[in-house]
């Protein structure tokens, strides 16, 4: 059997249900608090965006397959089986109005990890042919070309040449035995290539050996976004192969939210064995270097700066304090948003939402949540550590005529590096 079918979808649902999922569905008391934690509900007040509601088909499959009475309820027509039509209806709920940001998971009084379940539900949605066009395309490109945006090696090499010229530093490729292998997101390569220059500068100052792999440079994992573990595993395997080939100590995940989550937390589970290298987010590495005294900066930003926590890195990833430690080095007026850290609000564009054209209008609408946060503290500058957040925060700010520059944390650090040796044309 090939091609997407309802049967494959239901089968994937069955695989996806484990003890946590079963306990979550058993515990839900329909209190609705998850809705009030989700920006897709708070900014639209449409109850269909209630997080737990997005999981209804999965819940019924759990009931029919894994509970004693549920089997009979289905047999006697007391509970409807999940239909293809229903999954079609749920597609936009699962993909357009959810970034898997996990804020609902933090708030549910009975402890349901709804984002965990959404990730698993996507397996069945995709297998039954109900993933959005944009994500299907991105996955196909990721597998066949190596990048969801279709960025091929020559394009990367061109960017690298420019940066080497700009910075006067070499950007190492395929260096065996380097300490760190850095991944890059297509978004960075195409829209924010300065990131590559920034890490080159930082690593030079800190005296760190690093490299990019020509065989596996893509950080973005479309498989995790569309929710197909088979595809996600294939993409992770490429990174693992390269890391092992180059015998690096650690793989560095760049400023991309889902990329970090995919390689750091899902990676080994996707391929079925632990890595024999570490995985660090670039912020983790920089903070380590800061602690070791290998990162020297000069000067401080003076405007009211605030930090947007990329959901997959902070709340879902566990990198909470590092950005603050780093920013305090280079900012004298760092102000936290009213709800920050692990309770920060999503930019609305993660989890595949930004690759989904159908979700554009909704995504822009829910930006009002971030706007409210920024208004509350009168922010003058916004720093973040995910280029997807970055570009869509910029879009949202523009739509709302807000003149707040959005910068990358890594680039900000790099800009404040204490001069040592060549800096190139600056």
């Amino acid at each position, binding site marked *: *059997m090939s091609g*997407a079918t309802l049967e494959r979808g239901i*089968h994937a649902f069955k695989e996806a249900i484990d003890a946590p999922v079963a306990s979550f569905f058993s515990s839900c008391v329909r209190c609705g608090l998850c809705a009030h934690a989700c920006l897709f509900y708070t900014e639209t007040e449409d109850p269909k965006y209630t997080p737990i509601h997005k999981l209804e088909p999965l819940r019924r499959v759990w009931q029919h397959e*894994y509970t004693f009475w549920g089997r009979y309820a289905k047999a006697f027509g007391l509970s409807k089986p999940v239909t293809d039509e229903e999954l079609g209806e749920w597609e936009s709920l699962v993909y357009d109005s959810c970034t898997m940001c996990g804020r609902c998971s933090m708030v549910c009084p009975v402890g349901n990890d709804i984002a965990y379940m959404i990730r698993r539900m996507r397996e069945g949605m995709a297998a039954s042919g109900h993933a959005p066009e944009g994500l299907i395309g991105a*996955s*196909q490109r990721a597998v066949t070309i190596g990048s969801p945006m279709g960025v091929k090696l020559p394009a990367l090499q061109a960017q690298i040449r420019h940066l080497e010229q700009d910075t006067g530093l070499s950007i190492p490729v395929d260096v065996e035995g380097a300490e760190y292998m850095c991944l890059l997101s297509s978004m960075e390569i195409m829209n924010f290539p300065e990131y590559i220059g920034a890490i080159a500068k930082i690593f030079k100052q800190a005296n760190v050996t690093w490299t990019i792999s020509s065989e596996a440079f893509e950080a973005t994992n479309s498989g995790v976004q569309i929710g197909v573990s*088979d595809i996600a595993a294939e993409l992770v395997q490429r990174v693992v192969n390269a890391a092992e080939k180059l015998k690096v100590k650690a793989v560095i995940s760049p400023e991309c939210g889902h990329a970090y989550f995919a390689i750091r937390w899902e990676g080994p589970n996707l391929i079925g064995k632990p890595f024999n290298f570490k995985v660090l987010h670039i912020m983790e590495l920089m903070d380590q270097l800061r602690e070791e005294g290998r990162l020297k900066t000069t000067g401080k930003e003076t405007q009211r700066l605030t930090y947007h926590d990329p959901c997959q890195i902070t709340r879902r990833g566990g990198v909470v304090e590092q950005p603050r430690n780093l920013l305090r080095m280079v900012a004298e007026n760092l102000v936290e948003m009213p709800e920050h850290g692990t309770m920060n609000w999503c930019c609305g564009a993660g989890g595949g939402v930004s690759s989904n054209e159908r979700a554009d209008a909704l995504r822009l609408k829910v930006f009002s949540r971030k706007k409210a946060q920024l208004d509350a503290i009168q922010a003058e500058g916004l720093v973040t550590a995910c280029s997807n957040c970055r570009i869509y925060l910029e879009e949202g700010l523009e739509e709302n005529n807000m003149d707040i520059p959005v910068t990358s944390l890594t680039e900000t650090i790099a800009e404040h590096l204490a001069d040592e040796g060549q800096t190139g044309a600056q």
Partner: protein
Amino acid sequence: MSKDTTLGEILRKQGVSRRGFLKFCAATASLMALPPGMAPVIAQALEKARRPSVIWLSFQECTGCTESLTRSHSPTVEGLIFDAISLDYHHTLMAASGTAAEAARAAAMEENYGNYILVVDGSIPTKNAGYSTIAGISNRDMLLDTARGAAAIVAVGTCAAFGGIPHANPNPTGAVSVSDLIKDKPIINVSGCPPIPVVITGVLAHYLTFGVIPELDSHSRPLAYYGKSIHDRCYRRPFYDKGLFAESFDDEGAKSGWCLYKLGCKGPTTYNACATTKWNEGTSFPIESGHPCLGCSEPDFWDGGGFYKAISTPTENIGRTAVYAIGAGAAAGLALGAINRAKHDKAVKGHEKVTIDDLEKGS
């Protein structure tokens, strides 16, 4: 004593003053929650009352009801009124015995056919007539026979009213109440084990005065005496409401007169006049003496879950059931869980790889 002597004449002969007599009538009126204006009506009726014939049948009983009634030795007004009834047949009290006694019963029935009051104490065995007979006649036969000409039947004591102690599990004699056998006569149940003496006389006084039986509850007990529960009239109720309970028979709480709920008091589910009228002419009643109410005026009180088990406790061993249930549940749960696990593992094993070509339908 001549049957034609009125009650008034008898009382005067015995030296009961008019004042004393009227006091009794007033007390009876108020006991039965009748308006004060009824007292002279009662007095008038009792004055002229001729001693009606009363046939008292004793079946499977302990004679406690009779004892209760006749307990007073000093000539009380109740006692005198009792004498004023023509008690034509009573095992314990009548002088005659044997065939003479049975002949007296037959004569009384014939002479007063349709007008005599039948009083019954004790339950009636139905499994085997031999369990209780009088002069070779089974209780059941004697009851049915004597009831034919009765104007009304008073079932005195919980045995006659509800089956009482003989009726208790496993009820080896097949004991039943009067109401179980007689369906076509007015029956007044004066339950209690034994009933309060003044309750009996009050019922009789009512009948003598008005010629009709008093208002009855759903168990055919006179509402005047059985309309309120012990709990609702108990002097220890404030302690119940506050949550102050005796934990044992001799602890501080018990000595302080606290509520006896925890010691198994059935006051909340028992209807009788004990808490107000009390016993031994208002001396005391079980709770006041420190013992929880047994619920003796209620049907099946003997099997009511245990005299010393509080009403809120289960009557069966729930703890043991719980242990077995958890065990059974665990076994069933493990089995069902294993089925779940197998289904899940099978699904995982049967995983069909999803490639980029499988993301669209019909590809």
